[in-house]
Structure formats: C-alpha cells, structure tokens
C-alpha cells in the first residue's frame, strides 16, 4: 500500500536535510510502528506523507497504491485515503467540530463523486463514532480543538479518522499527553479500524502505546533513515536496552 523509496527531503526555508535515504514498505492490513529517538525525523516523515509544503522532496519517491503522491496537495492526498492524526491538532476558532466534520466528510464524498450525506445519516454516524470513543456530543458543538484538553484533542483526531474511513492512517505521537484511561479508549478506537484493506502507521517514542496497539512490524528511524526493522519484539528490545544498541549496530 505504501512504499517509500530512497526518500530525501529537506526544510524549504533553511535547506536542512531531515530525511536522508529512507526506505519503508507497509502492506495493506499491516500495522507498522515507527520508533526512534527525538530528532530522528519521525514527525517530519508524517508531514511529508501528508504533503506539507514546508518540506521539499529532493530525491526518491513515495508510492501509494503504486502511484507517486509527490505532486498531490494535502487535500488530494486526504481524499485519496491518507489520514494523519496530528501530534498537535490545530485549533479552528468559530468552526464547530460538528460543522467541520460535515464539511470534511462531504468534501471527500464530493471528490469521490458521491452525494453529500443527508443530515440524519450524518448525525447517526457521528453519534455512533463519538459514543465508541466515550465523547460527549456537547463537546462537538464547541469550536474544533479550541479549549480542548490534550486528551480531548487526541480523541477528536481519532473520531475524524473513524468518520473519514481512510485507507492509510498515520498516527503521529498519538499517545503523548494521554492518561492511561484515555490511552485505552484511543487505542481501542484505532484497533477497531484494523482491517485487511487498511494500513496503519503508528509513530511513537515509547513502547507504552504498542502494548495497546500491537504492531506487525517495527522500524527504527535514526537520522532520517530506517536503520533496523523487525517484529514487535524489536520494540520490547528497545524498551529494555534503549536506542543506543541499535544505533551502535547500524554505525
């Protein structure tokens, strides 16, 4: 589903190269964890996948279902099924969460040539999804992410992911700022989305999240490259011994 080939990318403003020859393949149905120390390029990778203009790809390619997505803007990537759950979701003052969900869902439907959702059907879907994440409907009347707690923001991200039904989900540090109860709810929400035709990329710093969302593959990112790949035991190994061993091995 996702194939990243020898990717090099830099920050547009100052030319700093962040991704330096990254290779990664994630198959449909797979949950891949990307781990790595601070500054290894994890969040940058998620932004580049979603098409943020602050980064420029200088070499290599990103194939999604066999097609390069480099020329697509963020909205086109989103409508083709790529979803990024942000580490720091943005506040959109004055735009009720509910209204935002409706616009996003209908824009994606429009891009696929489908009719907009009828209001009752829309409300039904939102209510179900919100209930599964233990979210209060009253919260959805508030402007998106404005004044939300860290946990509420993360839940709102997973809510959007559920409703938009993407094919490639990228979760950037979704566990940061969550207490253990919220972590459980959010993880259950993600696990419910596991499906044979969907790939999930979980970017995280710690093993903790992977106890709840058990990955099929684990990849260690360091200095903009995947330096080691393995199964879930690799995450446990990192937890026990730290990154130093893996980094030393690669060097």
């Amino acid at each position, binding site marked *: 589903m996702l194939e990243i080939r020898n990717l090099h990318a830099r920050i*547009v*403003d100052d030319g700093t190269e962040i991704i330096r020859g990254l290779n990664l393949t994630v198959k449909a149905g797979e949950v891949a964890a990307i781990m790595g120390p601070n500054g290894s390029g994890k969040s940058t990778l998620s932004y580049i996948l*979603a*098409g*943020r*203009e*602050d980064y420029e790809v200088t070499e290599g390619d990103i194939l999604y279902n066999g097609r390069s997505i480099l020329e697509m*803007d*963020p*909205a086109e*990537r*989103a*409508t083709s099924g790529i*979803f*990024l759950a*942000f580490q720091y*979701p*943005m*506040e*959109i*003052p*004055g*735009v*009720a969460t*509910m*209204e*935002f969900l*409706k*616009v*996003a869902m209908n*824009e*994606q439907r429009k*891009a696929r040539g489908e009719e*907009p959702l009828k*209001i009752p059907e829309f409300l039904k879907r939102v209510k179900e999804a919100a209930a599964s994440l233990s979210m209060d409907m009253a919260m959805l009347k508030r*402007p998106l992410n404005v004044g939300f707690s860290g946990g509420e923001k993360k839940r709102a991200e997973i809510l*959007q992911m559920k409703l*938009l039904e993407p094919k490639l989900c990228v979760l950037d540090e979704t566990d940061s700022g969550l207490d253990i109860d919220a972590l459980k709810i959010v993880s259950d929400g993600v696990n419910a989305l596991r499906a044979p035709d969907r790939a999930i990329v979980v970017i995280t710093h710690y093993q903790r999240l992977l106890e709840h969302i058990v990955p099929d593959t684990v990849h260690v990112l360091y200095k903009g490259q995947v330096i080691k790949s393995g199964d879930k035991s690799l995450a446990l190994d990192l937890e026990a011994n730290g990154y130093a061993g893996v980094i030393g091995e690669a060097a």
Partner: protein
Amino acid sequence: MPAVQDTIDRVRKIDVDQYKYGFQTEIAVDKAPKGLSEDIIRFISAKKDEPSWMLEWRLEAYRRWLTLDEPTWARVHYPKIDFQDIYFYAAPKSTPGPTSLSDVDPELLKVYEKLGIPLREQEILAGVQKTDASELEEVSDNVYKSGRVAVDAVFDSVSVVTTFKKELAQAGVIFCSISEAIREHPELVKKYLGSVVPTSDNYYATLNSAVFTDGSFVFVPKGVRCPMELSTYFRMNEKNTGQFERTLIIAEEGAYVSYLEGCTAPQRDENQLHAAVVELVALDDAEIKYSTVQNWYPGDAEGKGGIYNFVTKRGDCRGDRSKISWTQVETGSAITWKYPSCILRGDDSSGEFYSIAVSNGYQQVDSGTKMIHLGKNTSSRIISKGIAAGFSQNTYRGQVSAHRKATNARNFTNCDSLLIGDQCGAHTVPYMEAKNSTAQFEHEATTSKISEDQKFYVMQRGIPEEEAIALIVNGFVKDVIQQLPMEFAVEAQKLIGISLEGSVG
C-alpha cells in the same frame, strides 16, 4: 514551491472579476441631464411630484454643499470626483410609480430574478429554503418563523416595487419608497427626515440631502412588532449614474423591526458613486435591527472600475431603553467610507455594531462606527472583523465617547483583523473619549494571519485550499454572522467565500 512564494504568486494572479452580479440590463431610461445645479434638483423634485417644502429643503442642502470641501481624513485614495460628469437621476421609463407587479417592466423583473431576489409574493409565501447548515445551527432569537420577507426594490433612482404592503398595513406598519412617503405621509417625513443626519452633517450627506432620489421608508407604530423581515435591494444599472438613496426608519414606543439592505451593481470600467443616507429613530423601548449585505462591484483585478461607496448611516436611540443594532457584511465597492453609528440619547439605551469587512484586489475599506453616549446607563458593543487579501487596505475607524452627563456609560470594543497574503494592510484607528469618570470602556484588538499550520490541518481532512480558507475565515467572522437574520447568514457566508476566491496562500 515554498509556501510564501506560492502565496505571493497566487495573490498576484488575483481575479476579482468573478463578481457574479456584473451583468448589465438594457432598459429604456428617463435621465436628467448630466451634472448638478439648482435646475437639476428642481427636475428631480418635479419628477417625484414633491411638495414645495421638500424642494426648498433640497435647495437649502445644495447651497450648503457648495460651501463644503470633500473630506480627506479617511485612509482611502481616489481621483477627484467630477460632479458635473455624473447623472443624478435615471429611472426605468416604464415605471411612473407602478402599483402592482404586473405594471413592472418584465425586463426589470428578470433582473431581480437573476439576482435571486423574490418579488412575487406567492413565491415568497412558499418560505425560504432551509439549508443544511442552518439545521445544525441554533436558531437565534429574532428569527421570523414564517421565513417571509417584504421587499422594496430600488433600481437606479427609483423604487420599482414594494411587496407585502397590504399585509403590513394591516399591522399598522408603513413600508414604502421614500418618494411615496413624502407624498402620502408628509407629516411623518417632515418630523423625522434630517433629524438624525442633518442636512449640514457632512459633505456626502449634504449632497445626498440635495439630490436623493429614492430609498425606503419604514414606520412601525407604538407597540407593534413588525410581522415580517423588511428588506430593500438596491441595484445600480445605468452608466455614469450616481445612486443617492435615502432611507428613514422609525420605531415608535415599544415597536420592533428588523430590516435588511442588499446591494449590487454591474461590472464597469468607470467608477460609480453611491452616496446614501440612512436614518433610524427608536423611541422608548423600541428596537431596530438593521443589517446590510453590501456587494457593490469592487472593480477589476487592476483596480479599475468599481463603486465608490460614501455612506452616512446613523441611528438615534431617542427614547429610554431603546436599542439599535447595526450588522454589516461589506464585501464589495472599490472604496468604502462608512460608519454606521448610534446616538445613545435615551437613558438605558443601547447600541450595537457588528461588522465584517472583506477586501480583496485593490479594494479600500475605511469603515467603523461611532457610539455617542449621552444618556445615563447607556451601553454599546462593537465587534469588528476585518479581512484583507490581495493588495487591499482595510481600516477600522471607530469613535466611542461619553458625554459629561452620561453616567455609567459602558462600551466593549473588539476589533480583529485577519490578513491573507503579505501585500495587504489592516489598520485599526480607535478614538475613545470619556468626559465622565463613571464611564467604562474596554477595547481589544488583534491582527493575525491565517497560519500555514491551520490551513494544512484543514486540507489534510480533504478540504480543498479555497474551501479551507473560506472555512477558517467564516469561523473568524462567526460572532458577526450570528447577528444576521438566519435567511441571510448562509448567503453572507457564501459571499465571503466568493469574495476571497483567488486570494489563497
């Protein structure tokens, strides 16, 4: 491409020619000769079959106008206007005061159809279509459940038709063109015309007093809540013709009325002048809510053409506990010079000003309000949202003052500006003056840019760039949109989206 460069390039390519109402209609017109003189004023007055006191009033204003100089304090720039090169009167030939819709030139009806303005009462009776968005919103207080709107349609210099007159008359409400009011209700016009904006008020108001051609007149008697929304649609069609509308709204003791004004004009290379005067009078316990959706032609991508909109709007809270609320959505005009104001004369009276001013291309907006606190325990509230894109300049200019006797005067002002791109400007010029130590004035102002982070986030959900900007901007102006009658709130949101097309970055 770097984001910033992309923004600049896009803004350069700006195309404000997407103006939807730019069509022009060929209609036989009756025009006064070009230029301005006492004879022209006599001509206008005679055309309107006015009583002699009205003509005298006009001539007096004209003589005063000759002694005045054009004001230059606003942050707008334009070549000097040649008043001898303007037609001051143009009327569709077929309408010497039509009494019913069947008397109106079918070409004219087509114009309003094209503009989406309902003039046929049976169509209006069917009710305004509910949109998806409104179902999600909570319904605000002052919504007329029937969804019906009475319309006065003004084409160039004359009112062509006013709907629902009979039904309104049953409630005791007078809603007609000002020309008709001068003929039919001279005692009311004499009593109130010029009582809020005197003929000597300012350059453009004085000019308007001399040459005003048409506009709406509303009188809501004591204790009556006007049974439906009233609205006037102004259309400027003729080339080189100025529109000088005059509107007068009176709410007697305990009366309530909500009024909406809409405006459009064809797309032309020449500038056209619009100099209106609107006067509102609220007596004890009365409330007037006045909303404007101004969408005059803004000029083309190079800043050629467009309407010069020099308007004096003022409300007088003459009675105790009276309330006047202005809501404006300003998206059009090449130049806007407009300060809907409230004189808070009655004790415990209150004034409100909610404004959204969107400028794009080379538009220049200098708009704001004045809240003049004279009575005791008066309060005012100002919420202004300026959005500047392209090469436009957007200025908020406001004055809040408390008179010596205005004990416990309170004001809250909030001015937010949003910049799109980096070639535009937003300015805030607040004046505050309290001659009374018990006055409490609060002022908040912010200027922000739509952040790349916000835009990226919204687009990541599958919302295309222009829609993403429109969504963020509509969130920014939400507080003001909520003040509009529900039927127009959705329209205003769309209009803001259209005005910003091509401005994204």
